[in-house]
């Protein structure tokens, strides 16, 4: 065999992917292939993953442009008008809550905030597929899980304001909620670390012969972390009862999703190497999210193992209050996003069903705003970041261990508490 002569080849060069447009350019999403609503098939939950590989490359959609719910995923949805109205209310609540908290951050009542703008359907709808006792391992952009689970807004605000009623006792960054009772695991603040923990929770349920399932959450950018891949291999090997959720909102701070995705085409396709059924869904379609979440939860409950879901959506706001997206993407990009606004789409569906109207919508908005404003007044009266009542500084030393060891006790005394 001859040794190859490298000089016969042209020099190598490094590929560094770039988004189609940067600030100053015209947003163009014509390359995003969007199937018509209702056209993607709904397989049985015990389908062989090999037979649905194509579902990782399409987009499952239910709500069409006329506001109708169409196709097999819609037909499988067992949903009442009351459920639909409640779903809309959850999303509206989350959006108004976000707007109020963003404003509170600008007024320095809190140090930091992260909003959900454009992504409300995903967490609000997903929660409706879970049962009490199931556990989410969320990221910082899934507060809709709490709202849809009935967690009090006042508790959320107290956490944002780090006041004396903050259930996290002022220890955590704002938006890092936790409520075991509401199936919401404590948010770490680090990325991807909890994706594998969700798999462990599901494995524990199976080891214990229990009936609970878990849900893992991650963003498009964080799927690059090793913990994401660890979660997929554990979930695959042990057929853990877990729903693995990837929220692809196109942007990881300033980094477009192509950097994390590489050459695989979609994030859902990551599941194929692990033999995990993998679906891609319209994340701005409340009913599509709910339908796919129920399908995946059903698989988990029937001991059929994990499901990977990619929600295709768009982060319409900044990454956080520390971020200004106009520095790295065109300002008009969010309005050019082709999947529309999740609240508007569900609203139009309810109007098409004849159970909702613009007037009732405006009235509901006013009611929700009044309620949130009232709750906010009460929370602010307790305290905000720099004013009012806060947890005692002595509390800083609690919960490091179940029992405070002597060296910490000594430090607490030295600190004067």
């Amino acid at each position, binding site marked *: 065999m001859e040794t190859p002569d490298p000089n016969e080849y042209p020099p190598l060069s490094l590929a560094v992917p770039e988004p189609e447009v940067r600030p100053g350019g015209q947003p163009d999403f014509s390359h995003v292939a969007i199937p018509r609503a209702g056209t993607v098939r709904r397989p049985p939950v015990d389908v062989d993953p090999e037979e649905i590989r194509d579902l990782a490359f399409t987009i499952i959609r239910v709500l069409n442009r006329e506001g109708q719910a169409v196709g097999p995923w819609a037909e499988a949805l067992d949903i009442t008008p009351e459920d639909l109205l409640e779903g809309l209310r959850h999303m509206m609540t989350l959006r108004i809550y976000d707007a109020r908290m963003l404003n509170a951050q600008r007024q320095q009542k809190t140090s930091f905030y992260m909003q959900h703008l454009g992504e409300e359907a995903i967490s609000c709808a997903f929660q409706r597929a879970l049962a009490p006792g199931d556990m989410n391992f969320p990221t910082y952009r899934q507060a809709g899980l709490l709202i849809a689970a009935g967690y009090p807004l006042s508790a959320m605000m107290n956490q944002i304001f780090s006041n004396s009623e903050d259930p996290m006792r002022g220890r955590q960054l704002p938006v890092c909620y936790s409520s075991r009772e509401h199936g919401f695991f404590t948010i770490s603040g680090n990325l991807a670390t909890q994706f594998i923990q969700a798999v462990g929770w599901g494995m524990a349920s199976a080891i214990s012969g229990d009936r609970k399932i878990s849900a893992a959450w991650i963003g498009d950018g964080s799927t690059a972390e090793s913990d994401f891949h660890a979660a997929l291999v554990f979930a695959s090997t042990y057929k853990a009862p877990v729903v693995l959720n990837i929220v692809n909102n196109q942007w990881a701070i300033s980094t477009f999703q192509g950097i994390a995705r590489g050459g695989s085409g979609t994030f859902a396709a990551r599941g194929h190497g692990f033999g995990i059924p993998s679906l891609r869904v319209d994340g701005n379609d409340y009913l599509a999210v709910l339908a796919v979440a129920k399908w995946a939860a059903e698989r988990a409950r029937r001991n059929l193992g994990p499901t990977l879901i990619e929600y295709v959506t768009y982060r319409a706001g900044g990454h956080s209050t520390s971020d200004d997206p106009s520095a790295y993407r065109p300002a008009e990009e969010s309005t050019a996003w082709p999947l529309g606004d999740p609240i508007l789409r569900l609203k139009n569906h309810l109007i098409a069903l004849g159970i909702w109207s613009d007037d009732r919508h405006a009235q509901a908005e006013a009611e929700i705003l009044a309620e949130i404003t009232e709750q906010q007044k009460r929370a602010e009266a307790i305290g905000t970041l720099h004013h009012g009542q806060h947890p005692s500084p002595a509390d800083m*030393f609690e919960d490091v261990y179940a029992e405070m060891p002597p060296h910490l006790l000594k430090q607490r005394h030295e600190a004067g508490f």
Partner: protein
Amino acid sequence: MARMTMIEAIRDALDVAMGADPSVVVFGEDVGYFGGVFRCTAGLQAKYGKTRCFDTPINESGIVGAGIGMAAYGLKPVVEIQFADYMYPAYDQIVSEAARLRYRSAGQFTCPMVIRMPTGGGIFGGQTHSQSPEALLTHVTGLKTVVPSNPRDAKGLLLAAIEDPDPVIFMEPKRLYNGPFDGHHDRPVTAWKSHEMGEVPEGHYTVPLGKAVLRRQGRAATVLTYGTMVHVALAAAEESGVDAEVIDLRTLLPLDMEAIVASVNKTGRCLVLHEATLTSGYGAELAALVQAECFWHLEAPVRRVAGWDTPYPHTHEWSYFPGPARVAEALRQLVEVA
């Protein structure tokens, strides 16, 4: 000389290094087009192209591991970990690989890489944007660890780190990015442009690794510190009335023992100060070295002031942070020991 923030000084050092040496490459999360969440790499991609300054997937182990491969090949990667708190996924690559490449290959493969990471608190960053994990790095043999306290040093130390033949951890106290911070969080912020250490020489210069600097001369006690705490120590020396000598270590490893011994032998009293948690912190190493090298000159036990041994809290940041009041009290107690 231009007045610069520490961000501008770091960017300037990278610019000088990239301009002089085509083997210097810069990468990390959000560092390319956007120029980093703290803007330390702004403009470098536009100037040097996207194969020399680029965004990476969010995988710190990948960032450091790829950097090691490039360094072993012969490039000089300067990688950014977005916050020191995000370092842990890269710890295996740092500890088992970067630090030992030279040793285990008997010098066949080396790792001339710099790992930059914003460190420390003071910005209400909570437990995942405030940590000071330097002791986890100084404990690892094969690494050098640098913590600048001002723009002028930051540029010179970063250039020295890039030119060093071994892996260097470059920790940037984020609370010092825009101005010297003495721990008085309730007072107006001072900008580097009104501080003499904000004067940064143009072009290439280095501040050698392993050389401490005296920031304040004094006779009553020696404060050994680095990073943000240098400014806290200076404030505490003024406010306590204790005539303390303040040594800015600048490099934790290699350590300037000569400067330490000379000062402690003169004052006979030593306070070790850092923002990181107390137990098994870098201050323990300093205290052990001082008692071993200066025992017969010591007039009081070596004292430590550090962050409490709790996760970095959000609301109680200023009860946690070892500010000038705590340092001043410790200085007064230190000089009262008969």
